[in-house]
């Protein structure tokens, strides 16, 4: 089949960059990685990209296709080629480009190292044989331990775009892999450290990491689990934690969100005084309901019952985060073949394209 590719070429020694178009002949089963190999072999030996296992386990070949991160070896080209679409291939986002599709992963590894990515055993003295741990107690870190550190999540992370020091989805998922491990004895220290600035509460919950993770790790869920575990352990100094807690308190007591109290509860009384002018402005436009008598929602008992039910279940902390549980099972359960599992050709969301690309197109 004929496959067209537009590839962003970049040379860090000269700073030159250019969008090159290639048309190649590829076998029908070809993946994006196979197509890049054909380009490198037969058309341009200077094209640079990382690759190794070609079976989505080594994590080398993260790159962007039409502006969203993919593993090149997991991306089948048949439907895309049949649709006549010529995708734009570029290096991953949020990391400096070294050459063509190769990024400098050093900032990425630095953040992995920052979460103390190794077990800190709960016991001083190792048992003679294995630690006996019920299988279900390992379940909370099942997904996190699937991570191949490819960087696709980091490439798409919105928070990291505005705060390059944000620990980011991959490192935090790695952190959850240890916080949730019953054999680890440093959960509280870890949660304290992950709750600092650039940590779990700086995530904007855009879910792009979850959307783009090629292995079903669901990093945003991991961050949610860390947040829940932090609060369960009373680590709630951060505004993000206090904000979340107030939502619960407010819903439990009056069945709705009491926004007037949200600011002092989240930011503290002193910081809220600075917001008085803004609040007065809102009040003038009738946007602030009178605080007394407190308005109680008609169906408040429903929300209180819901709260009680959750408490009864004892699903505190990470146990309460159930979304997307059972990794890899999120793949559709029908006999649909490869295409159905990964979207049809051309059906690739485009969160944001490099601005330069738009310019050059014009």
């Amino acid at each position: 089949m004929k496959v067209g590719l537009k590839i962003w070429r970049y040379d860090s020694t000269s700073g030159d960059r250019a969008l090159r178009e290639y048309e190649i002949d590829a076998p029908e089963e070809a993946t994006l990685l196979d197509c890049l190999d054909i380009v490198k072999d037969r058309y341009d030996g200077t094209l640079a990209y990382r690759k190794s296992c070609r079976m989505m386990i080594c994590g080398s070949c993260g790159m962007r296709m039409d502006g969203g991160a993919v593993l090149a070896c997991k991306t089948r080209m048949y439907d895309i080629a049949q649709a006549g679409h010529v995708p734009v291939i570029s290096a991953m986002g949020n990391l400096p480009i070294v050459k063509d599709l190769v990024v400098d992963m050093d900032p990425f590894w630095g953040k992995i190292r920052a979460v103390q990515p190794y077990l800190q055993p709960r016991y001083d003295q190792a048992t003679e044989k294995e630690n006996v741990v019920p299988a279900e107690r390992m379940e909370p870190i099942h997904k996190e331990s699937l991570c191949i550190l490819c960087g696709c999540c980091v490439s798409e992370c919105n928070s990291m775009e505005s705060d390059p020091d944000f620990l980011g989805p991959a490192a935090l998922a790695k952190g959850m892999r240890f916080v949730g491990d019953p054999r680890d004895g440093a959960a509280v220290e870890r949660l304290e450290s992950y709750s600092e600035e650039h940590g779990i509460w700086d995530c904007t919950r855009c879910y792009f990491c979850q959307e783009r993770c090629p292995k079903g790790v669901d990093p945003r869920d991991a961050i949610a689990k860390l947040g829940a575990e932090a609060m369960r352990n009373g680590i709630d100094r951060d505004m993000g934690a206090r904000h979340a807690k107030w939502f619960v308190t407010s819903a439990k007591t009056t069945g709705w969100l009491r926004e007037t109290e949200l600011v002092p509860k989240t930011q503290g009384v002193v910081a809220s005084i600075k917001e008085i002018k803004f609040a007065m402005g809102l009040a003038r436009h009738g946007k602030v309901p009178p605080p007394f008598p407190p308005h109680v929602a008609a169906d408040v008992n429903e929300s209180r019952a819901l709260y009680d039910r959750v408490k009864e279940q004892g699903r505190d902390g990470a146990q309460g985060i159930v979304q997307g549980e059972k990794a890899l099972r999120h793949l559709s359960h029908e006999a649909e073949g490869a295409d159905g599992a990964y979207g049809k050709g051309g059906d690739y969301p485009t969160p944001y394209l490099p601005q330069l690309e738009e310019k050059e197109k014009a």
Partner: protein
Amino acid sequence: MHLAQAPAGACALRLVDPIPSSPMGETHDVLVVGAGCAGMRAAIEAFDHGANVGVISKLHPTRSHSGAAEGGINAALGNTADDSPETHAFDTVKGSDYLGDQDAIEIFTREAPGDIYQLEHWGAVFSRNADGKLAQRPFGAAGSPRTVFAADITGHVLIHVLYEQLMKRLATDASRLTVYEEFFAWRLVVDGDRCVGVICWDLLRGGLKLLEGTATVLATGGAGRIYRTTTNAYACTGDGMSMALHAGLPLKDMEFMQFHPTTMYPTGILLTEGCRGEGAYLINKDGERFMARYAPNALELASRDVVSRSEQTEIDQGRGINGSVLLDMRHLGAERILDRLPGSRELSMTYAGVDPIYAPVPVRPGAHYHMGGVETDEWGRTELDGLYAAGETACVSVHGANRLGGNSLMETITFGRRSGQHAAEWSHSSGTSGASGAGSAALGDAERDLKVLLDRTTGERPWSIRDDLGGTMLESFGVFRREEQMSAAIDTVDSLRERYGQVVVEDKGTVFNNDLTQAIELGNAIDLAACMLQAGLARRESRGAHSRPHDHPTRDDENFLKHSITRWLDGRPELSYKEVRMTKWEPMERTY
């Protein structure tokens, strides 16, 4: 790139200026080349024995191909059924078709359980039984369910736990551990009767670099990429075997390339033996479970050489489909597949377009694992002082003529550990090699050769030579081997070496020039192919993975119960033989 607090020239990269070659390299007590399971395990052990360790890897450590291992790792824990190291040893000896060295196998099976417990203590996320102990699944040719596993991503779990332990040691004492990531190891530096370092090409910044080590451990993995289709990663090009060969060291049992029975059509991507361990069937186009005719007792769980030959016979006799047979998991049910084999399902869906819950997957034998490699003793020592080898690069030999599934991951851990320990101890006792000038001389030679290669502008690019080599080996040195095909292939490989003499590297740059490293890898592959073919042609018998049904269909213990030894002399492989070390098991007829 570099994990350590940076020594000069190895600092965290902010890329702009490529750094030119420099004779001023770094010096370590122990250099480890390769950072898969064997390399990282060796590095950890050497570090724990007080050595200053440098790890060289052409990939980031977690990208190494050990991570692609799926089914599990063998140790006689006896958690699921009665088992013992002796049974494990006998299964391994029998599986090796009696070519494995029995003293090494006994050490291996005795030390394996302790190594598994240690991995668990380090945090490996293994699958568990209802009682909370490590679960074990049946695997091919094993007398007991002995394969410890993590669903079907065991290698992934191991490579990450080893990387975690490396990070832990880096956090403890960064002055004693440097990881040279994306450094391509090219040549060993030999000073008289000892190995004193490695010459590398710095992929990210360009430039040759001399890294000196009192001891050096080769752990660069296998060479499956010699074949056109293989389960192996692009990185598996036999670099370590070739470096040792060209430094004058012997390679052992190079004719034994294992063909794994379940690799997917058309990509060659692996589906784990764990599928059959969990109960999957192999069927032919008539829906018959044909293994009943070849291995009536073990059926699908006969040893890999037996299953691969059976499949190839079915295919050759017209009972296959598109050159494949079918791996049928449907009767296992969705729940078991999703719980125990989720990765295999994902691979089948992505690369074969088949959901194994609903349809059988086309599979065929594919090049998978090199039983042969750099000859070592049970401490990983080679015949050159200061040089060690571990993992698939090495041939201890515990696998003999045919490896059992689950034994290779265990080998990387047990012999990685032993090599790392011995290398560290040896480096402390032997003293440094001193400034002999061998390093700078070798670097000068390498620079001259590199210049010749990069200056060449007309000739053939590597890919066509690589494709011809892969096709030749697949056709002539596969599951079944014929005298005349092997002879012809030797000539073909010679002509490929001639073509390679005029190979052109198109990328002349310094930054991430893997056009250059891929050309060097091809040179390695060509010479290793020559070694394999010559050893195969000379072994006039059928043993383990080496099968000659047309002229020598049976095992010949009288003449060939011995290891082949290949050295590189005057641009050609030179063959000799060496006795197999036996302890308590006499060769018997091998049936499953």
